[in-house]
């Protein structure tokens, strides 16, 4: 094969259409998308779920389900991919183009050692023997920044952290030195600090190996971190494309403008109430709270000398207070104990030491009617909008259930109250008879919030409620929460790994690391002038848009407003 001309594009997509055949007739997922990619370029594709960005990406590697019909043209290195046979694909995938995915945990075979999974394509494409493939796998693991690669090569996926799994997946993808890497939301499931490191790795691979990358994300901030050019997709069509800097500075299409305006760091916020309500009795007082999980019990332990943590400390002596009407943000990476503290407050798990006081009464001592009243007063909204709703109940049934069970409304009035709750969360009335499956993620999350509000709670605990939503939906949910708080005077504990969201919504913030509070204070002060090195690391890891001067000014202005 002759070396292609430097200037010639590596990938040319022209008028790409993808339709899925369903029983209800063909559904169009991609409608006439055209773009090109130069060798060694990093191209971003941004859009919300359902915009066709993943489908476009999978079409390039022929990974669409059989029901898909692909039209138009995809030329890779001068060859037309839409006419490829299965044998051509097997030769091309892994060798010429490879792919990494959103959820690294589910994209690794749980029964196979990491080294074997990386070595697979080496053995298939490069005819490596077993030991050779293993040696190469160790090299690859170290090149993607995994420490102790000669140990990790024999690990199973469940023994690795999320970030390490994504690195291992990347190692497998680049094993045969492909020229194109398709990265489909590679950092969405990861913590912000891990995300920063993975993006850095992608950039390094791009520079070292002239690896062309298409990075797909719903987060324009992530795209702006490493992409020279960006495509904006919506409803299967390309609405805008251009150099990232230009596009962010002067977005032309209204949808692009909406995407940029939805960036949590850019949203206008109400003036904060700072310290004014710190007097009076706090609604929640957490005193020296510790939670530890016991390792499984064994009658006889023959594993003497081997390291085995007998107790896992999820929370270690945490103390803070939450005053009525206040919104407190809890930030930290996964495993930092931020969800544990929420569950301990809601009495979903019991502390090993310390107390949680609600209105001055110890939550974990409550019984009978007091406990019932407490359960009603503290409501939670969860991360995954689909999983936290019963799939067999309609929205109406979901909202009516707590009303009926707690006799919060007379039977005749229940329908009325359900309608009222739906309008509170801006959920259209005609969606009330649908099941969660027939709703979008944002709509499901509204149902989750309405269900919590049905109890007229005094404290709302929101555990990563926006992290599985698109940026635009996330912005809508956040303004909904803000409105509810202003109107109903709700006290809120807002848990998130997303500092920008916390900055937009919260009055005060607690930064958690390894079960302890490492920093706390007013949001503006902590995030503008972090004292703790961990908080600084977290802040640095947040991808930022290179903003237009005006927007920059606006964001800075609000961020530094003195308390």
């Amino acid at each position, binding site marked *: 094969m002759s070396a292609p001309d430097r200037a010639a594009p590596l990938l040319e997509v022209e008028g790409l259409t993808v339709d899925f055949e369903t029983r209800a007739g063909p559904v169009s997922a991609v409608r006439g998308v055209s773009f090109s990619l130069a060798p060694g370029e990093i191209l971003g594709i941004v859009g919300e779920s359902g915009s066709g960005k993943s489908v476009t990406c999978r079409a390039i590697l022929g990974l669409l389900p059989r029901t898909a019909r692909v039209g138009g043209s995809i030329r890779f290195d001068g060859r037309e991919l839409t006419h490829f046979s299965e044998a051509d694909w097997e030769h091309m*995938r892994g060798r010429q183009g490879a792919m990494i995915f959103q959820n690294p945990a589910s994209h690794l075979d*749980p029964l196979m050692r990491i080294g074997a999974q990386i070595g697979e394509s080496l053995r298939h494409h490069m005819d490596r023997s077993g030991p050779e493939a293993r040696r190469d796998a160790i090299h690859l693991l170290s090149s993607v920044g995994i420490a102790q690669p000669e140990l990790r090569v024999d690990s199973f996926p469940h023994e690795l952290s999320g970030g390490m799994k994504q690195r291992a*997946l990347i190692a*497998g993808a680049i094993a045969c030195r492909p020229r194109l890497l398709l990265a489909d939301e590679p950092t969405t499931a990861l913590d912000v600090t891990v995300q920063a490191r993975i993006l850095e790795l992608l950039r390094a691979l791009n520079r070292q190996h002239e690896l062309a990358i298409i990075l797909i994300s719903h987060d324009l901030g992530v795209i702006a971190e490493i992409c020279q050019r960006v495509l904006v997709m919506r409803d299967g069509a390309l609405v805008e494309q251009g150099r990232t800097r230009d596009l962010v500075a002067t977005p032309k299409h209204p949808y692009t403008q909406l995407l940029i305006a939805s960036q949590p760091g850019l949203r206008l916020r109400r003036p904060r109430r700072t310290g004014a309500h710190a007097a009076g009795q706090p609604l929640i007082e957490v005193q020296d709270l510790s939670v530890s999980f016991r390792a499984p019990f*064994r009658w006889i332990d*023959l594993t003497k000398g081997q390291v085995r943590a007998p107790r896992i400390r999820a929370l270690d002596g945490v103390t803070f207070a939450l005053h009525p009407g206040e919104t407190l943000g809890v930030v930290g990476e996964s495993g930092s104990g931020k969800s544990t503290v929420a569950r301990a407050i809601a009495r979903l798990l019991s502390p090993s030491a310390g107390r949680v006081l609600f209105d001055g009464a110890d939550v974990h001592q409550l019984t009978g009617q007091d406990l019932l009243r407490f359960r009603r007063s503290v409501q939670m909204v969860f991360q995954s909008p689909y999983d936290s709703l019963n799939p067999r109940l309609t929205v109406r049934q979901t909202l009516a259930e707590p009303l009926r069970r707690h006799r919060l409304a007379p039977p005749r009035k229940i329908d009325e109250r359900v309608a009222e709750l739906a309008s509170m969360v801006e959920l259209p009335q005609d969606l009330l008879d649908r099941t969660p499956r027939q709703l979008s993620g944002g709509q499901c999350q509204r149902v989750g919030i309405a269900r919590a509000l049905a109890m007229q709670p005094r404290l709302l605990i929101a555990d990563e409620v926006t992290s599985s939503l698109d940026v635009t939906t996330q912005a809508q949910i956040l303004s909904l929460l803000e409105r509810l708080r202003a109107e109903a005077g709700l006290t809120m504990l807002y848990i998130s790994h997303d500092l920008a969201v916390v900055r937009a919504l919260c009055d005060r913030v607690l930064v958690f690391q390894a079960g302890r509070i490492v920093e706390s204070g007013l949001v503006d002060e902590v995030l503008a002038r972090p004292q703790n090195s961990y908080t600084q690391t977290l802040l640095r890891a947040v991808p930022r848009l290179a903003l237009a001067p005006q927007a920059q000014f606006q964001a800075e202005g609000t961020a530094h407003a003195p308390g």
Partner: protein
Amino acid sequence: MQTLSLLVNRLLQLLPVLLGIAIVTFLLLKLTPGDPARLLVGDRASEETLAAVRQEYGLNRPWPVQLGTYFGKLAQGDLGESIRFRKPVSGLILQFLPPTIFLVLYVVSLTVPTTLLLAIAAARNHGGWADQAIRVFGVCGFTLPVFWVAIMLSRLFGVELGWFPVSGYGTGFLEHLHHLFLPALTTSIWLVPVMVQSLRAALLEKSEADFVTAARSKGLPERGVFWRHILPNALLPTLHLLGVMVAYLIGGTIIVEAVYAVPGLGRLMVSSILSRDYSVVQGLTLFFALATVLVTLLVDIATTLIDPRVRL
């Protein structure tokens, strides 16, 4: 070392389970209506004989004491004595055990390859004619009553064609194979469809799994993806089902053993119930429970070998 430690712990956890089983089997006899002493001596025996028998077997003592005695005997492997055979129950079980074990292993070795073959064929032709045909045969297989299949097969292959003996167990390995072929086939005919259904569903589910897409994205050929990724991940639920089925078959081949006159545990159980030979029933109940526990343990051990996430 760690595996050994886990195994030891797992075995220790079995102790309370076994204790529970023993108590239940003891109560089983206590709660059955009728007087065991009366049963032993017959209806026409005098009150004195009855009292003597009660004294001899300790039946006049309070039941916690009897339970203690029962445990004491169990610990020595003494399951009591059969009234009908005038032999120790443990010896009786050992005598009837080989045909049953042979039959169960025979069924497994007929079922497992057939299941793999049919399930893979069905899953790879998902929705195609092979899939449909396998499904139809499957439905027939487990809806036909076992006794009817047994009778039909023994008539056709045993009586009409004379290829296989229709009763007994024979002597020597080859003769066992010959004699037990029809009983094993009869059992497999309903077992295979159940297993195929489980494996086929798991194969279809796993072929949609994310890691399968990831394997395809690396350019692995479809065949390799199937054997290395889809099949191993799909095996576990079927393995567990096989465990449950084997445990069931050890005491549950009664119909087949009856039709083909195989001298196995199923027949021993039925005849002992009919002749009110309660100590045999009790001993067998205990034995079946024990077998179930052991088979489950074996399946769990096999699971840990396949799935590194599972610990004993």
